[in-house]
């Protein structure tokens, strides 16, 4: 029983990290109808930048001396997330904006290429970039309930995700900018006609998405304790699978999809002999099945193509 419970907690945590990336995918897809494949690599860039801030600048000890530790962590994570937000904006300007109005395959290819370029740049320019890096233990890891191996870190990851999603929900539904973003993703022309500043909405979406991806990357790195320059592509693929399974374009869909994929992975890995190898395969098979038979995902609505 306690084994199942600890696996469930594992799955929930993993699901939280996938959900954040899936939410990023859904945000970008909703507002621009484009799948931004570099999301995973951007998230890992976030993890790297937080790591760089924590270990390479002298910032952490200085802040630790004057502020409580958790405030320091909060500040570092915010700085890292801000950098990913800006990076996301840069990617938008460079490889997505030029293809506006053209076939959606071009930004797909260009974002894949951008993601690869990003991870390669990290590998080349970060000191020892090609080797796996031990991620600094910024989150406390005391075990709270020894029976089910639940530590403070698990709780923090889950709580952080809940908090982030709640803030996002408030932003998207209760602020003017958030409502503009919804309007643009529902119907771009109609939104422009009622006076929504389309360009500003898109820019904001990419900034917000970048922020979420940065935090997601930090949580993933804290969960696994190591970070590698090429983790981004696998993580991005899983996040994308989660977004599609849940429903591309829907924030709740991202959460549902993230949890589903995580549960499939964790349970295949735990309860099928030799399963760890097949966990990822199971996750990808799930997304293939969904794209074939229910492309709108669990939450999405079926779109009818007009001739």
């Amino acid at each position, binding site marked *: 029983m306690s084994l199942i419970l600890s696996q469930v907690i594992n799955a929930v945590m993993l699901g939280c990290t996938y959900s954040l990336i899936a939410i990023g995918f859904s945000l970008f897809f909703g507002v621009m109808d484009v*799948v931004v494949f570099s999301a995973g690599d951007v998230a890992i860039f976030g993890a790297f930048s937080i790591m760089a801030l924590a270990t390479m600048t002298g910032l952490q000890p200085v802040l630790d001396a004057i502020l409580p530790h958790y405030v320091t962590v909060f500040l570092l994570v915010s700085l890292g997330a801000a950098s990913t937000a800006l990076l996301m904006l840069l990617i938008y300007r*460079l*490889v997505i904006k*030029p*293809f506006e109005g053209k076939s*959606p*395959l*071009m930004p*797909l*290819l*260009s974002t*894949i*290429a*951008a993601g*690869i*370029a990003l991870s*390669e*740049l990290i*590998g*080349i320019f970060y000191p020892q970039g090609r080797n796996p890096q031990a991620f600094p233990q910024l989150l406390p890891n005391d075990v709270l309930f020894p029976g089910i191996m639940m530590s403070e870190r698990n709780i923090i990851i889950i709580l952080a995700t809940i908090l982030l999603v709640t803030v996002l929900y408030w932003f998207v539904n209760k602020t003017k900018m958030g409502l503009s973003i919804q309007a643009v993703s529902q119907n771009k022309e109609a939104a422009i006609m009622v006076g929504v500043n389309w360009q500003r909405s898109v820019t904001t979406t990419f900034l917000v998405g970048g922020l979420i991806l940065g935090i997601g990357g930090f949580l993933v790195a804290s969960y696994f304790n190591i970070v590698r320059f090429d983790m981004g*592509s696998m993580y991005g*693929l899983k996040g*994308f*699978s989660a977004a*599609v399974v849940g429903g591309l374009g829907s924030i709740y869909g991202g959460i549902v999809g993230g949890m589903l994929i995580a549960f499939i992975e964790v349970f295949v890995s735990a309860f099928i002999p030799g399963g760890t*190898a*097949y966990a*990822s*395969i199971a996750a*990808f*098979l799930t*997304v*293939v099945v969904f*794209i*074939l038979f229910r*492309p709108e995902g669990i939450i999405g609505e079926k779109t009818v*193509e007009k*001739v």
Partner: protein
Amino acid sequence: MPKTALFSNTLVIAILVSFTGCMLLYIALVGPLIAALAVLVLVLGLMVTAERTGKVEPVYHAVEDHKGISLAVIILFVLALPFVLSNNYLLHVAVMGGIYSIVTLGLNFQVGSTGMVNFATAAFFGTGAYTSALLATKFGLSPWFTTVAGVVAAASLGLVFGYPALKTRGYYLSLVTIALQVIFTLMIINTSWLGGPNGIPGIPAYSLGGTSFRLPLAIFGMELPYQANYLYLVFILLGLALMAASRLHNSRTGLAWNAIEQDEIVAVTQGINLTKLKLLAFALGAAFAGLAGGLYGHYTSFIGVEDFDFSKSLVFICMVLLGGMDNAIGVVLGALLLTIVDEKLRDFADYRMLMYSVILIIILLSRPQGLLPKRIRRYQAAKSAGEAKVQL
């Protein structure tokens, strides 16, 4: 255009174009990285100038009117290559270029003609390679037979992967192919009888009449390195593949594929059988890739899973994009040039994938139609009395 003299203008143009093409490739092959990049830029410049001055189609017509001579030049060039190259390594690069060209011709059916961007090409390439290698090493069958088996296996996988193509559109299709490609790689890594992460060593070479292809070729009193055997084999097959591709392009099948790319629904209303044609594109493209895979395995005698992963698929797409979508010669040119540049970049191994991604972005931004863009088909009325040439 009536041919009045033996050495008409068009004949000269045809010979000139084929010869220059071969020479440029040769320069790219034997020169340093700068030379290869310069050739790339030069070809781009020539194409852009030709497009501006409206000379592209006349040159194409010239080459096509004198197909025989142009081919003869190219064949002579390929035959002479092993004699002229001083370096086994460069010969190896040429062989790899030929192998990848076959793959890209297959991918072109899916991406260029039908508009289905397929990220699983490396899986087809790998299926051909693994099937052929496993049958040859574990069951001791003749490499010729196992290569054919590899083609069949790859084509079958093409059908399997093509099934989602029937149900999805646009980039959902691409996303499914990405997932399938990743599943393929993971399955190989995790299955030990498929070699697992260690790959399959000791794949036998082809042999003809008792002599193995791994032995140096003794001709005209000279001894050529063993790569020459493979060079001739690969380029013969490449020639056949090119013929097939060009025939398909000019047939109703090619037209139907293009119709599907432009507008599926209109194509269906015109009576085009989507299922048959999409599956054909996938199966045929996969067959080409499988053939190349079999050749690859028996050439390098060792295959490992890292040769058949998602980044390899991306490289193939790069080649098609660079060369020119739906243009068979363009695609081969793209494959050859990119293989050469890739080998030259081996000195900067760290920057390889970075280079590919940057090239891809630059091509997409500046010239998505590639070096040799897609052409309008050229039809001629029967050569009866009067010279009515109908250009469609």
